[in-house]
């Protein structure tokens, strides 16, 4: 009898809405639906308010500009002769690159603006870019689809070799130019900044417009740079990728040093 009742108890397990997993399923469904609805709502909302948002951002950018940039570039970005260039037509891409990499605001006049810790938050950089872009049309912030690093690394490498390697070194290690100027190393630079630099030609870098290197070709170059970042040199210690100078110096000092040391040891008398 007792055995029989245990059997029925086992057979009549809670099913349907009384199942212990039902609560969890209910919570999951609830979360997904509210989250989805929110995402749907917020995306449509942002699409509707983009222009208004940009407007507000540009207003914010104008204030930032007046307090941080106007000394050199003029109160309405018209430029100050001999101090800072006019920013009409440089576009959002230029601002995003110069301010986003910390090159601007400039610490002091020198051969070229050097990279330093970024002075503004991403939102503030965006505001400044919106403000400068609102003055006059210019190259905009690049489309995300070109920055993913999913292009053709081999094509990118060939284009890099032809267009970039003479200054930036074939492994992107950078190199010297005239009178204290230099082409910076490219490892670890954000794809957006690489793209913006190509489009705007900051400082002494030439401009590579979309007719010279198409956006797809720029994406290939970014892919190549990402490949370089991800794949360490197969030769081991790369000595800064500077080629024969660094390697020659290394072997001259350490290789010959070792040879001299061993020779002295061989010729010296034992104690």
């Amino acid at each position, binding site marked *: 009898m007792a055995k029989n009742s245990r059997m029925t108890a086992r057979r009549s397990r809670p099913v349907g809405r009384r199942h212990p997993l039902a609560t969890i399923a209910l919570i999951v469904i609830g979360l997904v639906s509210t989250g989805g609805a929110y995402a749907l709502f917020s995306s449509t909302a942002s699409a509707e308010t983009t222009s208004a948002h940009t407007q507000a951002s540009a207003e914010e950018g104008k204030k930032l500009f007046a307090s941080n940039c106007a000394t050199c570039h003029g109160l309405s970005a018209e430029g100050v002769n001999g101090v800072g260039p006019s920013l009409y037509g440089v576009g959002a891409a230029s601002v995003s690159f110069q301010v986003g990499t910390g090159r601007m605001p400039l610490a002091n006049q020198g051969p070229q603006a050097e990279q330093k810790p970024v002075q503004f938050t991403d939102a503030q950089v965006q505001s400044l870019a919106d403000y400068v872009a609102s003055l006059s049309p210019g190259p905009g912030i690049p489309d995300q689809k070109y920055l993913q690093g999913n292009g053709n690394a081999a094509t990118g490498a*060939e*284009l890099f070799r*032809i*267009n970039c390697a*003479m*200054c930036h070194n074939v492994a992107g290690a950078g*190199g010297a*130019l*005239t*009178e204290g*100027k230099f*082409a910076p190393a490219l490892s670890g630079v954000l794809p957006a900044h690489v793209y913006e630099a190509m489009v705007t*030609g900051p*400082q*002494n*870098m*030439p*401009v*590579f*417009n979309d*007719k*010279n290197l198409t956006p797809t070709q720029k994406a290939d170059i970014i892919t190549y740079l990402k490949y370089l970042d991800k*794949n*360490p*040199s*197969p*030769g*081991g210690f790369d000595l800064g990728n500077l080629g024969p100078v660094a390697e020659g110096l290394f072997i001259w000092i350490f290789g010959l040093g070792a040879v001299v040391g061993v020779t002295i*040891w*061989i010729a010296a*008398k*034992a*104690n």
Partner: protein
Amino acid sequence: MAQHDDGGDNAAAGSAVVKSEPPQASRGTAVIASDAFENPGLPPHRLRVTDIDPQKDRTAERRVYTLFYLSIVGSILAVAFYVAFPIIPGDTASVRLNTLLLGLAIALGLLSLGVGAIYWSKNLMRGDELSEDRHLTRGSEETRARSIEIFKEGNQESGFGRRTLIRNSLLGALVAFPLPGIVLFRDLAPAADPVKQLEHTMWAKGMRLTHDPSGTPIKASDVTIGSVFHVIPEGLNSKADRLEEKAKAAVLLMRLKPEDLHVSSGRETWNYNGIVAYSKICTHVGCPVALYEQQTHHLLCPCHSSTFDVTNECEVIFGPAKRPLPQLPIAIDSEGYLVAQSDFHEPVGPSFWERT
């Protein structure tokens, strides 16, 4: 003639070296030749710690055989690493690991072998100084006479001096046999006149300027101010000797503000609205000059830092180059594409012997 110096009799050591008299100065010269070098002999023999202390001797012995065992370990490790960490095609990290481990293991094997051998000889092998006499370079009179005799005998037996016809024909044959080599190797040089090849490039009237490497033509409107384009002549990619042609015909295209350009007379029509094209081949030793600074308009050669000023028709402002970069005269065709007006007006690249 070698003799061991066992620490005691130093005076004898080294005394077997033949002393030469100082050269006598001829009368009238002011050279004083009396400072002949005196043989100082060997320094006193000093015993090593391994000679005195048996404990140290055993330690040294232990070190030597440990090094040799280490060498065995290194060699075996090299084989083990080669098997355990193979090179996987396409995976550069595996190449790096493979070569690194192989190198370390082989270095361990060879270095400990060498260091062990040297350590053994320095600390444990017989350690007293040894001097060995030099002998004179000149042979004895007897040897010299005999060698002359051998030559004479050889001449007599072969009849080399007597049978003049044989001798002369042999000399003739020896002179003649390198001739085919000289003629054949001479033909390894380019068949066409190298001077002509160096003086001219692929560029010709109406040939379009195209992108390197794709070969798509460039419109004048594509070249915005501050741009730099790397240019090859149209149709280069379909040529069999495209690399040779590219090495001469590569061109750098830049656009400056027209008022920045200082154009000399005779070249007024060579640029198009501030778009200028210059040979990319350095006039120093032929490296590609392509480091263009868009603000200063300087073109820098990466090899020896020759710097060219684009605003002044690429005159040399720094570095070892002696001549400005040759300019390619350009124009636009009916469709707005950039074309060459002609070839370069002078040979591109570094100087060569017959360059006029």
